[in-house]
């Protein structure tokens, strides 16, 4: 069963994809954050570029940091961004 998700992108992930956020229908079978990155990479060159080194991309589900293996079931908003450089 597919699910609707709000995706948000920050910093150079946002720049590469070319938009700060979008609502996306995620197909059944995409179960984790890592799988979502792989699936997004197949959506076009801008996504492939943004996720070409998925190891450096961080993610948050509903505004909490998560690991790549985190399940996405039940999520409303998933964000992708580079390592943080605040402070």
């Amino acid at each position, binding site marked *: 069963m597919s699910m609707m998700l709000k995706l948000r992108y920050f910093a150079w992930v946002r720049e590469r994809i070319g938009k700060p956020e979008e609502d996306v229908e995620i197909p059944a079978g995409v179960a984790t954050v890592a799988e979502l990155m792989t699936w997004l990479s197949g959506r076009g060159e801008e996504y492939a570029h943004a996720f070409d080194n998925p190891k450096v991309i961080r993610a948050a589900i509903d*505004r909490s940091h998560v690991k790549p293996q985190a399940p996405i079931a039940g999520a409303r908003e998933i964000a992708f961004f580079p390592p*943080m*450089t*605040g*402070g």
Partner: protein
Amino acid sequence: MSPTIAVKVQREPFDVSAEAAALSRGRTDVGAVVTFTGICRGDENGEAIAALNLEHYPGMAETEIESHVAEAARRWPLTGAVVIHRFGRIVPGEDIMMVATASSHRAAAFAAADFLMDYLKTRAPFWKQVEKASGPTWVEAKAEDDSAAARWVKPHQAAE
């Protein structure tokens, strides 16, 4: 008295001394106040910069910082803590962010401020872009910041 806690994420400048003064005003159990102020420098790796542009994740920035302040208050007997982080365009010489911690004794105030800074650097959703003559570039995260933050992980959390 319960700890005086404040977290703000804002575009506007802040007043470190007013925030720090508020931590001890009207109470006589405060023996130590530590403040940290992060200031925009005029260079990045030796190259002059015109400004920093700070992007953040609204909503998550506040809740992430609040959870770290709450964790600091669990680990140390704080009488108060304030964290303010700006976003937007910041020019050299301007303040970027501040932490102030207060306790009856200095060791707790120092440790909590140090802890909060390490966590803000590696966990708070902010990203710095610098404006240079050669064009804008995103600041890269430093491995030393990750290792500094790792100092505070308790043994039972290390495997997470």
